[in-house]
């Protein structure tokens, strides 16, 4: 049987360290015509998605046949060499960008971003410096393709390189209040399917019986902590904390550690003491101020987003004022 040209290209490209020039060469698709995804690539959706300016996203994971994920540390899984992840970004119903994270050798994760062609037939590798796409995400604002250094700023902080494929993110106990949560569709990988398929070691039956969830007294607290962990906790984490910044947001983190935490930034116009979170006072909470601005030097996150996540800002505002208030 004559192989499909695209499959041949994938076979030629992937064993080496060269990054394929076209997305079609990465092994994502079984057939490029019609963009039929290879069934070996498992779709999935993290329960707390990263805010990406309202993009519609699709994600897939490829695990080399016969290999498993070392899940000894639930939030720092170790993937076998050859693992690949893809994340596709669409705006206004059109594919704009697909990113690939490829465990290309024992100590290397390779990052690649592909910009979709206007005819939507394939996507081409973007230079390391990244660049602007033509996709308008708001009047006068376009989606930006991150540079390799931008990728590393979140993925290369000494912790796990894969951020959205963890026990908490794949838990079948989904948070109904998680902002921008995507519904689980049939065929999606979850913690339970990975466990049942024997793809994680050591086996953990409790991941099926008692899926992980953020422990919180109130539903809104659970959602707020989950959002902060997924969107902020990749930099604000304990394993390699930001020098001089005590804020730790990656789960598991106790709510108490966030309350009344001193900061060295200030909220303009707030007469009281600025804190990361001031219970009952969202107007004095630096986290909310940073989330709500796109000032280039004080915004959070500092990259990978051009628009304020208003849904999340409202969630945190309500949480701080109503759930944490006096």
């Amino acid at each position, binding site marked *: 049987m004559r192989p499909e040209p695209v499959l041949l290209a994938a076979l030629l490209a992937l064993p080496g360290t060269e990054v394929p020039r076209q997305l079609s060469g990465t092994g994502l698709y079984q057939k490029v015509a019609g963009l039929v995804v290879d069934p070996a690539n498992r779709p999935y959706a993290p329960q707390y998605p990263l805010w990406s300016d309202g993009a519609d996203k699709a994600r897939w994971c490829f695990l080399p046949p016969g290999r498993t994920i070392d899940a000894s540390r639930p939030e720092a899984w170790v993937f076998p060499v050859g693992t690949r992840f893809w994340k596709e970004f669409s705006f206004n119903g059109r594919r704009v960008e697909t990113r690939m994270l490829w465990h290309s050798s024992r100590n290397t994760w390779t990052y690649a971003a592909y910009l979709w062609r206007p005819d939507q037939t394939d996507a081409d590798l973007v230079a390391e410096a990244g660049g602007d796409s033509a996709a308008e995400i708001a009047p006068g604002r376009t989606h930006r393709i991150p540079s390799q250094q931008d990728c590393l700023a979140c993925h290369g902080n000494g912790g796990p390189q894969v951020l959205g494929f963890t026990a908490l993110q794949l838990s079948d106990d989904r948070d109904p209040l998680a902002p921008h949560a995507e519904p689980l569709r049939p065929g999606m990988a979850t913690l339970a399917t990975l466990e049942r398929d024997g793809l994680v070691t050591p086996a953990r039956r409790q991941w099926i019986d008692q899926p992980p969830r953020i422990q919180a007294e109130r539903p809104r607290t659970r959602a707020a902590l989950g959002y902060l962990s997924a969107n902020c906790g990749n930099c604000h984490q304990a394993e390699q904390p930001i020098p001089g910044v005590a804020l730790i947001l990656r789960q598991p983190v106790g709510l108490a550690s966030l309350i009344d935490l001193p900061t060295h930034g200030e909220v303009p116009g707030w007469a009281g003491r600025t804190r990361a979170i001031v219970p009952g006072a969202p107007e004095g909470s630096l986290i909310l101020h940073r989330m709500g601005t796109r000032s280039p*030097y004080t915004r959070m996150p500092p990259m990978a987003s051009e628009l304020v996540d208003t849904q999340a800002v409202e969630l945190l505002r309500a949480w701080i004022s109503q759930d944490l208030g006096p």
Partner: protein
Amino acid sequence: MNAPVRGLVGLLLVWPHSAAAPARDRIRRGEYLVDIMGCNHCHTPRRQGPHGPEPDPSLLLSGHPAAQPVSPGPGLQGPWVWAASRTNTAFAGPWGVSFAANLTSDRETGMGGWTDADFKAMARRGKHLGRGRDILPPMPWISLRDASDGDLEAILAYLKSTRPIRNRVPDAVEPGRP
């Protein structure tokens, strides 16, 4: 004392010196690199001396003095694009106003809490604190980008050996903001 015991005693006497020597060498190397790369030009505030502005050794590498607010940058015209404050630690240009960082070993406001990984991330990526916004002009971080791991480790070792000066440098100011 028999020969093996004498040898062991000798080894113990030499050991602390041997272990400390590489660390001292690394710090000296770092100091040399900081000197020849001119880090002090912007990170050590200048004062007025008899021959004009000169680095203030009492504020070595402590960055823009927090107690010294700066007004909005001047509106420059013609070929002039950027300006520096009297201390040569605050810089106004199309990027707004940027401030030289505190590079002393102070743990809270300087480099005392930095790890080699943090410092390399900053140097290689050009990101504030290694993972924040882009580092602003006029910091020539690109000159650091291709430095060897050993040189970057030496620079940080030297900075962490300096006298700590507590000085929380202000956040950068975006263009058009007071």
